């Protein structure tokens, strides 16, 4: 060892014990080199150590590995010196030393050089970016596309750096995007991201971190495969055609990590993945899952029997009344996945064969699709092949006796479970991990117990047939537990005011029957939220207005229930269709000839002949011998204002039907009918909690479309709070004035008297105010009409709305069909 070398080592040891020790420990790896080379090596180590302790340590620690990988000091020693060119590069240096050897071995000299060069350019530009780069495991950085792939991955980063986007943020996102949609996807993602970044820094960074909806949506767009979103309706239709089930399709889970995505069900909805490999696989998935639903894989008695079979207690349902199969598999401990897969194979076989009876050629399609796919790797392959073989054997009638049982029409899930137990006891199928499980399924198939399910009821049919013999209807699942009244934003006084503190008639229970009022004084001066719109209120006792007394706030409803909306649409299908056809026939654009007119564009031939005939016969007929074709002009806008107070949650009498059930249906039908008519319309609900918190809930504004969102809102309607009708009418009038129409109709739907918590228990107070509000509306040219479900409506409605401006519906059940009809009648009158 030369003196110069010793000098350096001593120097290092003097500065730090660790440095001296590490340098000496690293030395044997380089001693075979020339004196000059060793000196150069040590100098570099020393410089690095003085520059940053951690970088120096990493240098000495990695030496043996680097020497072995590179077979010398070149070029890594020079590369190492590059980290000395800027302050704060130690993190990048540590990453470099830890990985360079492995990169040299796996990617060769050129690969390593490229890897270093691409990172080194960032040392000069942005040290943190360089650190991020060198710390990403090189195997991940390179991916499957080699050096060119790495170059392509990094290419967009240069441009983005000009927008001051660090490499760390970019790389993390880019690698995930590359995993999902390949390098082309990365380029496109980065290009669009640059625009987003230019538009706003926060938005841009969220894009590159894949945290924003727009980034996710973009990925969904460029995702390779068959995009399910665009075809949801088709699949819904096919599911309905084959199974008679009309289930909502919801978005299934979608992971940025990629992986195989499955169609899943919870017995009540289908969860559709964003993409599937191709259309055929998507179709098969819908058919197969639909078959599980109709052939009772999720039927409650069958599942109970399943648990009984294993001698287990039927597990209690979860808080959503769903059940899970997990306890069934739990006893298999670590081998759970293996058994669960075997059970799925058996149950899928049973269901697939049952489906084949309905859908000729189905098994052949699954087999064809399965053969068209690459076989999965690893243990999953054995399950995939077993599934395929089962279907082929089933087609050829070659199944073993134990499995052939599953192909009889009477076979149930319990038979599948038994067959699975037998198979499991005698199988040599290898164990596999949860991650490997995903690829074990045939196309269109998926884990049957993926989600907890709402148990279904058995179909009423002796011979199992998919759609129960063409019977339509709602899914045979258990009824959802009834909703309880929702709380409005803020607190519901029904809930949090002690009973003795309630003053007034608010919080009615039952249809239009006010609770006995105990009046102890005038309204409480509760301060509600500020803002909103202030309206005056009529006080009949002083025969004057209280200025700015009532305050109206517009609030959004948050409860969506699409399933309920669909259920209602099905229940009222006949009514709706008849309504629509009637309306189509009436459409003002339909240029039906108006015959026997006194003037017109063309003669009415028949009337003309009759005219001549009667003239000749010596009579004096009327000269109405023309016909006209012109659309009838009707320009009516309507706002439907529904009372959403607590009382609508009550049952009407002891019929078991709640007001809210019929209210939802009525508003849905009304909306559908109005879409058909083409009149501008809006749907609002209202409730109130003291004079300064009258809440108006826009369900559909005039400008909104009547779409799924609106339908789901209507499906989720519920009651809350009280009924301060006057203020709601005043605000609705203001809203209506903005709608451009010649005639304006304000349709109020209620089930009881106006009342509120602070009305002092005087029913006349708000009643009088409502009367004034109606009068004010009339002065503005708005016709108000009230449809009431209150059997005692006749007592006060004539006073409030005026004779002929109200209707009391004695039967709650008739509301849905009557509401649109009443509107059309009113509209006819006002036309």
């Amino acid at each position, binding site marked *: 060892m030369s003196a110069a070398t010793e000098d350096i080592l001593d120097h290092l040891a003097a500065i730090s014990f660790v440095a001296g020790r590490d340098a000496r420990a690293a030395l044997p790896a380089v001693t075979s080199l020339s004196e000059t080379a060793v000196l150069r090596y040590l100098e570099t180590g020393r410089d690095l150590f003085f520059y940053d302790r951690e970088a120096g340590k990493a240098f000495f620690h990695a030496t043996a590995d680097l020497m072995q990988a590179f077979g010398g000091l070149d070029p890594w020693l020079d590369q190492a010196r590059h980290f000395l060119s800027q302050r704060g590069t130690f993190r990048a240096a540590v990453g470099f030393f830890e990985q360079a050897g492995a990169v040299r071995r796996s990617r060769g000299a050129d690969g390593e050089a490229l890897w270093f060069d691409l990172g080194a350019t960032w040392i000069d530009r942005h040290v943190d970016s360089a650190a991020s780069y060198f710390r990403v495991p090189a195997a991940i950085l390179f991916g499957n596309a080699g050096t060119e792939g790495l170059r392509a991955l990094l290419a967009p980063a240069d441009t983005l750096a000009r927008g001051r986007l660090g490499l760390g943020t970019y790389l993390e996102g880019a690698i995930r995007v590359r995993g999902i949609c390949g390098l082309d996807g990365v380029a496109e993602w980065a290009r669009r991201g640059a625009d987003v970044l230019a538009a706003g820094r926060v938005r841009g960074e969220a894009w590159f971190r894949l945290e924003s909806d727009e980034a996710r949506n973009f990925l969904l767009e460029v995702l390779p495969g068959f995009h399910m979103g665009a075809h949801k*309706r*088709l699949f819904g239709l096919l599911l309905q055609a084959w199974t*008679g089930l009309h289930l909502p399709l919801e978005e299934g889970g979608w992971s940025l990590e990629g992986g195989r995505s499955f169609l899943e069900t919870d017995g009540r909805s289908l969860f559709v993945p964003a993409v599937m490999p191709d259309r055929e696989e998507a179709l098969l998935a819908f058919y197969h899952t639909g078959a599980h639903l109709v052939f009772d894989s999720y039927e409650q008695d069958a599942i109970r029997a399943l648990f009984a079979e294993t001698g287990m207690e039927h597990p209690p349902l979860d808080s959503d009344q769903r059940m899970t199969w997990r306890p069934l598999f739990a006893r298999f401990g670590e081998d759970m996945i293996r058994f669960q897969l075997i059970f799925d194979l058996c149950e899928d076989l049973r269901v697939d064969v049952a489906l084949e009876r309905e859908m000729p050629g189905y098994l052949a399609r699954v087999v064809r699709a399965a053969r068209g796919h690459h076989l999965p790797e690893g243990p999953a392959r054995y399950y995939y092949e077993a599934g395929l073989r089962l279907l082929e054997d089933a087609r050829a009638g070659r199944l073993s006796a134990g499995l052939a049982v599953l192909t009889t029409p009477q076979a149930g899930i319990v038979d599948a479970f038994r067959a699975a137990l037998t198979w499991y006891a005698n199988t040599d199928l290898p164990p596999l991990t949860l991650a490997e499980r995903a690829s074990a399924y045939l196309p269109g198939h998926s884990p049957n117990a993926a989600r907890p399910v709402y148990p279904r009821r058995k179909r009423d049919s002796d011979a199992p047939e998919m759609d129960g013999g063409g019977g339509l209807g709602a899914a045979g699942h258990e009824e959802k537990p009834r909703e309880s009244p929702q709380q409005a934003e803020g607190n519901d006084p029904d809930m949090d005011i002690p009973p003795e503190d309630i003053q007034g008639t608010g919080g009615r229970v039952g249809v239009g029957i006010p609770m006995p009022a105990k009046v102890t004084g005038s309204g409480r001066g509760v301060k509600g939220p500020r803002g909103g719109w202030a309206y005056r209120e009529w006080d009949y006792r002083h025969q004057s207005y209280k200025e700015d007394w009532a305050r109206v706030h517009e609030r959004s409803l948050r409860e969506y229930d699409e399933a309920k909306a669909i259920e209602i649409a*099905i229940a009222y299908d006949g009514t709706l269709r*008849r309504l629509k056809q009637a309306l189509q026939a009436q459409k003002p654009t339909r240029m039906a000839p108006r015959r026997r007119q006194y003037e017109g564009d063309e003669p009415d031939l*028949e009337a003309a*002949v009759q005219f001549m005939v009667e003239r000749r016969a010596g009579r004096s007929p009327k000269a109405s011998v023309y016909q006209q074709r012109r659309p009838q002009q009707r320009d009516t806008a309507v706002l439907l204002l529904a009372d959403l107070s607590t009382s609508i949650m009550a049952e009407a009498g002891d019929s078991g039907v709640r007001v809210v059930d019929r209210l939802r249906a009525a508003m849905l039908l009304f909306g559908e009918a109005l879409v058909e008519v083409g009149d501008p319309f809006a749907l609002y609900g209202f409730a109130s909690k003291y004079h300064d918190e009258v809440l108006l809930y826009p369900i559909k504004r005039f400008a909104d479309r009547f779409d799924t969102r609106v339908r789901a809102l209507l499906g989720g309607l519920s009651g809350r709070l009280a009924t301060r009708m006057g203020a709601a009418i005043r605000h609705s009038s203001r809203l209506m004035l903005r709608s451009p129409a010649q005639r304006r109709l304000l349709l109020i739907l209620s089930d009881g008297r106006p009342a509120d918590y602070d009305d002092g228990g005087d029913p006349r107070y708000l009643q009088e105010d409502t009367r004034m509000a109606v009068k004010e509306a009339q002065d503005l040219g708005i016709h108000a009409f009230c449809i009431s479900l209150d059997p005692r409506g006749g007592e006060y409605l004539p006073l409030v709305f005026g004779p002929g401006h109200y209707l009391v519906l004695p039967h709650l059940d008739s509301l849905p069909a009557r509401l649109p009809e009443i509107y059309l009648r009113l509209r006819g009158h006002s036309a």
Partner: protein
Amino acid sequence: MAESNGLRLLIDEPFYQPVANEVRVFLAAWDRRLPVMLKGPTGCGKTRFLEHMAWRLKRPLVTVACHEDLTSSDLIGRFLIEGNETVWQDGPLTRAVREGAICYLDEIVEARTDTTVVIHPLTDHRRHLPIEKLGIEITAHRDFMLVISYNPGYQTVLKDLKPSTKQRFVGMNFHYPPADVETRIVMKEAGVDEGRAKALVAAAGKARNLKEQGLQEVTSTRALIYAGALMVAGLDALEACVVAIIHPQTDDPELAEALLEIFRTFFPEQG
């Protein structure tokens, strides 16, 4: 078929496959000359049934397809000018009343209410037809029978038959026949083999589940027969289904795709 003055006398037996008690009920109504109302969806065999009964009873049949602009004079008759004279010409209803035919008012709800009330006196014990323009009232021939049809799908809030009209009729409900009967009908009418007839009927069974999805009318037996007939005429099976069933039924592309997917399952494409 013999036709005279708008009255058709059916000579050859029109094929009709009874499904339930409809023939017995109709004969009983005929026996008492009670008016009959046939209810059922498009293409389920209402008209064919009536033709068959007319043939069986050997009565001529007068069919009037009702529409919105149908006036009472279209049914009863009108004066025409001939040279310098006015001449009365009987309408189809009057002819049937005079000559003892079965008068069939098809899709009666399409006609305006004021038109349909002219049949009222014919449908009760009076069996009279007042002809206002002639100032006379004619008594129906003893073999006259009135039959109306309507499709409840067309029934409307605003354009329903008045209850007072409906109650004057014996009501008979028609539906698409059960699969085995429908298969026989398709085989017989279209001349198609049993395999294809079965497949057509099975596919229609599935397609009919889409009723509430924007299809105003579901796949009818008539459409199946057309599809079968086109197959016999040499069209590819799926092609026949597309042109005879799917295209006429919907303009909605997704619905059409769903229907196509269903029929394709039963009639896989060649190759």
